[in-house]
């Protein structure tokens, strides 16, 4: 080894160690800072303010000064958007993997990849302009709200679902298809009863990405209905609260140190809430997997 290449080797080594140490510090500092600054806010009133928790959760008593409505809003957003996006995305992925051929398939794929690269604020702008159009034409009283936001979030997370589904199915061993065919299954049956269940782990990784993305997005909901104070979402239209927006709003507009501490606590709550939703997704995946592999649940 010449001394020149040895110098490059050593610099590269030093550079990579430095990068790693720097990067490792980040999540540690982040979490520590969040914990530290959120300390004052941890209590039941963080979630429910002055309202008794059970009344708020079961009887719909309005909550002021608490993040419960924002939590409900976030969960509602994720649920609605994934309800729209998952069937659409998985169906599209199946189509692109198994039925689309030639130019049409390439065109569709390009469009979906394009969608993946679009800044989220443009999708929010699209939703906003859609509403303007609806107001001018069919429904002058239409409003921003959960439905519009969920629709836009669905568009946002669609590419994750389409590409993970497509890659999972395309990546299955080809013997699986031949085996299915040799057993007298039609193409549709092979796709639906063998390929799709086999590709579940991959598909669910897309679902998990989608859930995470829908829970954390701020730019889209900023333009389509999220506000700082709206109470627990009562309908699909009309303003609502969501955790990411709550955090964003308080970071700029907090009136007191207590409110700021709430923002930090909300950040941790968002992380935990996302974790819980992901946990549910993994549980569902395990159950589906068991049903597929053994024919029944138990």
């Amino acid at each position, binding site marked *: 080894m010449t001394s020149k290449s040895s110098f490059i080797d050593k610099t*590269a*080594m030093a*550079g*990579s*160690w430095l*990068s*790693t140490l720097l*990067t490792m510090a*980040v*999540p540690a500092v*982040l979490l520590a*800072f*969040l914990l530290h600054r959120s300390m004052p806010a941890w209590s039941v009133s963080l979630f429910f303010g002055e309202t008794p928790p059970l009344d708020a959760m079961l009887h719909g008593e309005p909550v002021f000064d608490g993040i419960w409505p924002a939590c409900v809003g976030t969960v509602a957003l994720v649920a609605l958007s994934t309800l729209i996006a998952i*069937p*659409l*995305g998985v*169906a*599209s992925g*199946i*189509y692109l993997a198994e*039925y*689309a051929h030639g130019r049409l398939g390439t*065109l*569709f794929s*390009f*469009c*979906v*990849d*394009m*969608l993946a*690269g*679009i800044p*989220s*604020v*443009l999708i*929010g*702008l*699209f939703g906003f*302009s859609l509403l*303007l159009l609806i107001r001018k034409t069919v429904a002058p009283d239409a409003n921003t709200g959960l439905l519009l936001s969920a629709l836009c979030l669905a*568009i946002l997370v*669609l590419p994750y679902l*389409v590409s993970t589904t497509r890659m999972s199915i395309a990546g299955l061993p080809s013997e699986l298809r031949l085996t299915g065919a040799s057993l007298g299954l039609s193409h*549709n049956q092979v796709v*639906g009863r063998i390929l799709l269940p086999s590709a579940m782990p991959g598909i669910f990784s897309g679902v998990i990405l989608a859930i*995470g993305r829908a829970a*954390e997005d*701020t*730019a889209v909901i*900023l*333009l389509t209905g999220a506000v700082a104070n709206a109470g627990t979402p009562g309908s699909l239209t009309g303003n609502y609260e969501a955790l*990411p927006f709550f*955090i*964003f709003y308080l*970071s*700029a507009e907090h009136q007191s140190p207590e409110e700021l501490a709430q923002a930090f606590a909300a*950040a941790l709550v*968002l*992380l935990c809430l*996302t974790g819980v939703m992901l946990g549910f997704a993994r549980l569902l995946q395990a159950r589906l997997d068991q049903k597929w592999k053994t024919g029944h649940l138990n």
Partner: protein
Amino acid sequence: MTVRLLHCAAAVSALSVLAIFGFLLWFSLPVFQGGALAALFSWHWRPMQGEFGILPMIAGSLCLALPTMLIAFPVALGLCAFIHGMGPAWAARPLIGMVRFMTSIPTVVYGLVSVFLLVPLLRSSLSGSGFSWLAAMLTLSLLVLPTIVLILDNQFRMIQSEIGLGALALGLTPAQQLLRLTLPLSSRGLLMAAALGFGRAIGDTLIPLMLAGNAPLLPHSLLDSIRTLTSHIALVVATDSQSAAYSSLFACGLILFIASFLVNLGLHDLRNVRRKGHD
């Protein structure tokens, strides 16, 4: 019947991107028709005086995204190199796990921590309010870093699965294998990661919104306040100041869309060349 349903689903997914483009185009039409196009390309955004120049925002987007990539890409490469040979083998899995965790942290949380940790730091050690080009740049680098690492990691793994055993048989250490074989072979993968990272950086709204200060002016120093196309859109819509400003907003959106389209076209070409090369 089922196949037709699937076809429709795929069509809807593909058409949604066209719908977005269509709406942007439609709503920015007043700008083109009214001859206000020239007025858009000015350096002054003063809606109260009827000036809707968006050049400062275009400059802001570029000034933020490019330096961010200059910081984030080398660090991501260094980290990925560490995972794939420069560092001890046992560290690879926990590090990837840590990077995955970092991608799952919401953007708003990065912003929040930066506002109350980085900004005061800048304010006290340097001049200005702290809400600056520099603050946004550093935080955005942190944000796109894990994404770039994961893409690079994927690329490296693909290549190493092809050459790994052969390289070991030649007596190369993992570090040498990485530096001398994997890296040169993954030039396309590096380009792809850079393109994707750039797309991510230019498309982010929240970091510039929370940290860059939002003055629609061309920056002269790192501590100046800037505004990007993305934060501009969010600000104008959210404040709902003047609907006269709306058309210029959609023009901003159109510019962002075209930029994103070009990045995607480049990525598409890179992917196709890679595939052909492998055949």
